[in-house]
């Protein structure tokens, strides 16, 4: 009897996680994730020596941490991870010519995609969480904040990051299985289309992942600069339940589309 989609996916996950964790991509992106930690360390040193006044006021550590999570992780690192891993879920196996071993086993081809997507999720969570934890413990105690008071928001940030990784990974899995030059398309989507569309009023922003993710931000952002005041005029944030449901739908639909593409597509390996 052919194993179910989920059971097969779990077995592909087992096979793929180790490969993904110790890949050159993970090492490179692991180094990238060291960037915020170095920045946090520098801020901590500056803060302890001179303080960290922004517009004359000393912001709480939790606020700085929130800004770092939003600007560095959600707006930059999470889409980067999504693009680089998501578009390569099947492409890596095709390039390495190991896809044959998976496609000649009694499992649905879509289980290969799903298993590798699950491996991506665990792999990227394992990469991101230590970095976020270190940044939190370096930044949260500054500016009069306490680690204990800020801790609940850390958990909410973790949840938001996981949701972001899941959503971007699924979207870019679809891009990777359907389009030629998926990496370029993915980067243009994440760093061209999304930031541009979010700046303007209208419905187009609903076609972005970031629109729904920003509703999950729990931190108050400083709003006293002219630019942030203007941006705030256009900032339209959906309710949290709407965002969660929308992100779940995005994940389900894009994974389904990617799975269908893998089921139907012929992969001709170079000899």
């Amino acid at each position, binding site marked *: *009897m*052919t194993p179910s989609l989920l059971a097969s996916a779990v077995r592909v996950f087992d096979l793929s996680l*180790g490969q993904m964790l*110790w890949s050159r991509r993970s090492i490179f992106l692991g180094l990238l994730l060291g960037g915020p930690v170095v920045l946090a360390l520098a801020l901590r040193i500056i803060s302890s020596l001179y303080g960290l006044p922004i517009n004359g006021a000393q912001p709480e550590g939790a606020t700085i941490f929130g800004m770092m999570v939003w600007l560095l992780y959600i707006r930059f690192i999470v889409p980067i991870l999504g693009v680089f891993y998501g578009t390569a879920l099947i492409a890596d196996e095709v390039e390495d010519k190991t896809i044959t*071993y998976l496609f*000649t086993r009694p499992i649905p*081809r879509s289980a290969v995609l799903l298993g590798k997507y699950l491996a991506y999720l665990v792999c990227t969570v394992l990469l991101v969480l230590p970095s976020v934890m270190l940044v939190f413990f370096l930044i949260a105690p500054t500016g009069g904040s306490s680690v204990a008071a800020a801790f609940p928001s850390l958990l909410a940030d973790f949840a938001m990051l996981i949701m972001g990784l899941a959503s971007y990974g699924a979207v870019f899995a679809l891009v990777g299985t359907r389009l030629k030059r998926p990496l370029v398309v993915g980067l243009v989507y994440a760093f061209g289309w999304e930031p541009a569309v979010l700046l303007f009023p209208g419905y187009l922003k609903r076609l972005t992942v970031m629109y729904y993710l920003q509703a999950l931000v729990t931190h108050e952002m400083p709003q006293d600069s002219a630019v942030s005041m203007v941006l705030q005029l256009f900032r339209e944030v959906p309710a949290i339940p709407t965002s969660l449901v929308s992100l779940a739908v995005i994940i389900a639909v894009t994974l389904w589309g990617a799975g269908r593409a893998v089921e139907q597509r012929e992969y001709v390996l170079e*000899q």
Partner: protein
Amino acid sequence: MTAIVAADHLSKWYGQVIGLNDVTVTVPAGITGLLGPNGAGKSTFMKLVTGQLKPSKGTITVLGEPIWGNPALYHRIGFCPEQDSFYERMTGLEWVTALVRLNGVADAAAAAMGARAIETVELTDAANKKIGAYSKGMRQRIKLAQALAHDPELLILDEPLAGMDPIARRRTIRLIKDWGRAGKSILVSSHILHEIESMTANILLINQGRILAEGNVHQIRELIDEHPHTVHIKADRTRALAREFLAHDDVLSLRLEEGAVVVQTGRPDAFYARLTDLAASGEHGTIHEVTSPDDNLQAVFQYLVKS
């Protein structure tokens, strides 16, 4: 006789390029060799048989069922692909076990089946070494192990002897014949007649995307024997090997390359038999790899197409 593989007006093209052209063929139970030079359509046919490609036209059934989009059929099929690609960081046993698990086998049973398959291909000593550290011959054998671990009815082996040393080659041929005797059906491809001939007399001759001939090997064999056969041997002591080869009159020409000796022989059977004995004795050092270029067959196929 039951058809293991049945192709009916099967064609496959890649854009403007024809990979397989209107092939109608029936592969019977037992061992069948698919013989053809590089670019003949062997790989395309193997990919269609293993459901990696979808026919552009016509139909193909394997064990009586269509293979494309039919994953359940892979319970009954084991495939050893041509490409030398692996999860290099895994050990041989981990890799074979992980692939058997994809057949829905429980962890402990999969590990036992993996170990048994590795024992069959005589790799037990290296089972816990990383595949990245395997020699070419060991890599070929671990590929065979993953194909047979779940005890399939039909084994599809794409160039399984490529790059093996003479001893591993002899062992693998023996294994394939043993599996055939044990009742498995085997479709094995090669571009070297002598390899195929040592496993079976039943061949499919393929060239330019068409099946040129099928059946008993002997007539084709006679044609091929009229053409010199080139063998590329990677070894430690190439000069000593060259001296040994030149002592025999079936060697028509010989040249030395870096770490290798390239021989043209008029009697491949005699040459391969002597080479295997030399490798087994270790008299002239280790012989690492034996390959034969595709152009051996090219002249023969040109002759067949013209005649």
